[in-house]
């Protein structure tokens, strides 16, 4: 019989181990799900987790998918560390794509090197603008930022649909809800021959690096952490809490907005009515699984990207439903939250199951 006992202090080892335990449990659950679906678990596992990345092209795809996840995840981590729950990254990404994409469409004749940076700038500003709404309503009116930012996701997606059905629609596109294809200068260059890997990955990595300096090295990052761990200590020390709320929200909006531009200027190449397969939500999981630390977030984004690729590959090769990806994503976060219990508690052999708790 095992019994649960509080550790004298939180375990550092478990802090790092718990995401690995979660990933492992998710893989085991995967085998069970595959078996229940009547697939050979070994083959399905291979098709889901190995096949997508066993060549250069596959690795490129993995990085393409990981790129927005790590960028948004880092941005969200800034807010999450301050206990600012921005779950509106999906909408911020969409508005970023709209802003950057509109620049590309308006300036379709331009063939200059400054076009892409301008698009990225506008996309980042668009994402920040969208994130500024919940930040403003939270700091001025105490409105819950979780619900406001989430509602704005629906609004942003409808806004995008409105635009690609109307003003931004390609006049020669046979009425399809899509814009013209972006020009050469508005498209991210491919980095590695034989893959689709584009320069956006470098932008994302730069964003992660900036996030790391902010979170781990700066005084502002320290203040964010204090506000998240103990708001009253932040007040006591005189840290400006509404400034920290703004910082947390805008960092997420900036990252998501830029990620949105990188999507439309990279793999998609035009504005369409759906620019993200739920990256904004998946990035929340990435941020948590990555322990709100930029290094961990990079690793977690690779794992999540693999789940996306595996979903596509499983659908093509094994007729597995694509929705399995969503289940895996949810399970991963469940397992992480459960495994985190072991940071503060441990299981010891003993006579009473209730042990130190009742």
């Amino acid at each position, binding site marked *: 019989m095992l019994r649960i006992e509080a550790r004298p202090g939180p375990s550092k080892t478990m802090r790092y181990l718990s995401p690995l335990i979660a990933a492992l449990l998710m893989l085991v659950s995967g085998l069970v799900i595959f078996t229940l679906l009547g697939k050979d678990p070994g083959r399905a596992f291979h098709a889901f987790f190995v096949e997508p990345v066993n060549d250069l092209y596959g690795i490129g795809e993995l990085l393409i998918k990981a790129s927005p996840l790590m960028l948004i995840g880092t941005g969200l981590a800034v807010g999450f560390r301050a206990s600012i729950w921005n779950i509106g990254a999906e909408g911020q990404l969409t508005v970023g794509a709209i802003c950057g994409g509109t620049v590309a469409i308006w300036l379709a004749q331009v063939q200059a090197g400054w076009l892409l940076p301008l698009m990225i700038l506008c996309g980042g500003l668009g994402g920040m603008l969208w994130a500024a709404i919940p930040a403003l309503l939270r700091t001025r009116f105490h409105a819950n930022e979780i619900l406001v930012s989430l509602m704005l996701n629906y609004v942003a997606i409808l806004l995008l649909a409105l635009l690609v059905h109307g003003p931004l629609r390609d006049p020669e596109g046979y009425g399809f809800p899509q814009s013209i294809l972006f020009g050469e200068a508005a498209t991210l260059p491919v980095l590695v021959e034989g893959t689709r890997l584009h320069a956006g990955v470098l932008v994302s990595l730069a964003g992660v690096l900036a996030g790391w300096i902010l979170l781990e090295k700066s*005084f502002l990052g320290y203040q964010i*952490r*204090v506000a998240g761990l103990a708001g009253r200590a932040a007040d006591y020390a005189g840290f400006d809490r509404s400034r920290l709320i703004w910082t947390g929200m805008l960092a997420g909006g900036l990252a998501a907005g830029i990620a949105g531009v990188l999507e439309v200027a990279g793999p998609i190449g035009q504005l369409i009515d759906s620019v993200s397969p739920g990256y904004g939500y998946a990035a929340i999981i990435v941020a948590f699984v990555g322990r709100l630390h930029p290094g961990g977030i990079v690793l977690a984004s690779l794992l999540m990207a693999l789940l996306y690729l595996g979903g596509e590959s499983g659908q093509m090769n094994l007729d597995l439903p694509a929705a399995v990806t969503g289940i895996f994503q949810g399970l991963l976060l469940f397992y992480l939250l459960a495994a985190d219990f072991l940071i503060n508690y441990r299981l010891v052999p003993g006579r009473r199951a209730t042990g130190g708790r009742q």
Partner: protein
Amino acid sequence: MTPRLQLEGMTKVYPSVTACDRIDLSIMPGEIHAVLGENGAGKSTLMKMIYGVIRPDAGHILWNGEPVVIRNPAHARRLGIGMVFQHFSLFETLTVTENIALAMDGRCRADRLAGRIRTVSEQYGLPLDPNRLVHSLSVGIRQRVEIIRCLLQEPKLLIMDEPTSVLTPQAVRTMFDTLRRLADEGCSILYISHKLDEIMALCHRATIIRGGRVTGTADPAGETAASLARMMTGHDLPRCAQDRPAPGTQPCLEIHRLSRKAEDQFGTDLDDISLTVNRGEILGIAGISGNGQQELLRVLSGEQRLDTPETITINGQPAAHLGPAERRGLGLAFVPEERIGRGAVPGLSLTENVVLTAHRMGMVRHGLLCMERAAAYARNCVRSFAVRCGSINDPVNSLSGGNMQKFITGREILQNPALLIASQPTWGVDVGAANVIRQAIIGLRNRGTAVLVISEELDELFEICDRLVVIAGGRLTPPVPVAATDREEIGLWMGGMFPDRPAVPQEAGHA
């Protein structure tokens, strides 16, 4: 005669500490029995085991001679055990009647219960209005709710955990009368306290606990405060070395006619408060908690800013419009009442917690943190204030209450403040640590710093302060030199009977 309650070998082990180690205790019907011990000695854990909140790891309980296993508080209440908690177990947004109904195990109609509350509370001289919402009651009245809640169950044993910290000396006497009457009616009372004079005045017998073990039993009437203290702490009570220099006359902190409505509807309005704290003096603010201390402190620390800068000046500089960080720039340091979550950030190390307020001591350059400097500061603080810890990289919440308070006080004092404000500096701290902290505050004063201490412990204030004021109902008495007053007078003021001013409307039970 069979003892009402007998404990044999009660033991409770936590992963890091043995809270109770084979404790024996027995109490007769009608006996008032003191359990005496320092903070952290294991008194509260022992009482919670008797009340069924905590399950013992070993040991037996005999109730009227019969062995029992007390499964939960409802079971304890059925046996006839009642408990008044130190940190009240009340529900603020519910009425007095609802609060009491939640502790009554049988079904009872609300209107009948309200009637009984009225009768019983008046019968014991502790009148209560059953329809009031608890959050609108003062701390003293809330304690009455707790006591009446127990008395309605007609207990055979009443456990009282540090009950007098929320009462004026006069109210303490009223409560003692109530307790003696209960004892005369045959009720046994377990009285937990670390206040020696109270125990000598009230109790028939005392069991002394130190470090989770019984170190002796005594007849308090036959002991002196010093001898009880020796049993409690294992050594003689330390006294602060006072060597008072002449108190300064140069004002450092000045408050001019501060009035303010409470921002929280559960709070106290501040009413026309004026006060001057001079350099090189310790000014104490006495009062029962909930009389405006929190509100005053938030205004003084800058957590609550005012639009009228001149209302508060620090060294002559208008400061009432400034935030905490800017006031620290003027030389303010502040030790808040809550250690964990306000004075220190749980989950962060000692080094990281130094940065919280001492970051201006060269720990930030170009917006980036310089952790080496923070670590040096933390090491200095740990050494100078004898903070017992594994390492400065340990999370701050792994420290004991006393060590954490030494750390926080040290962090503030090492910034060489011109003005130190300390709220409840030794609340819940063991005697040794309390002495280190008081001595450090006195040392700071002797170097010319102005110190404002807010405390509910009169003994402490009389030991370290130069002048005293009392806060009651959001109003302040004029200051009085410590040598020119006594506990009796301060106690009257704490009850709202101000000198030369109309009495503050008393919040009695409104019965």
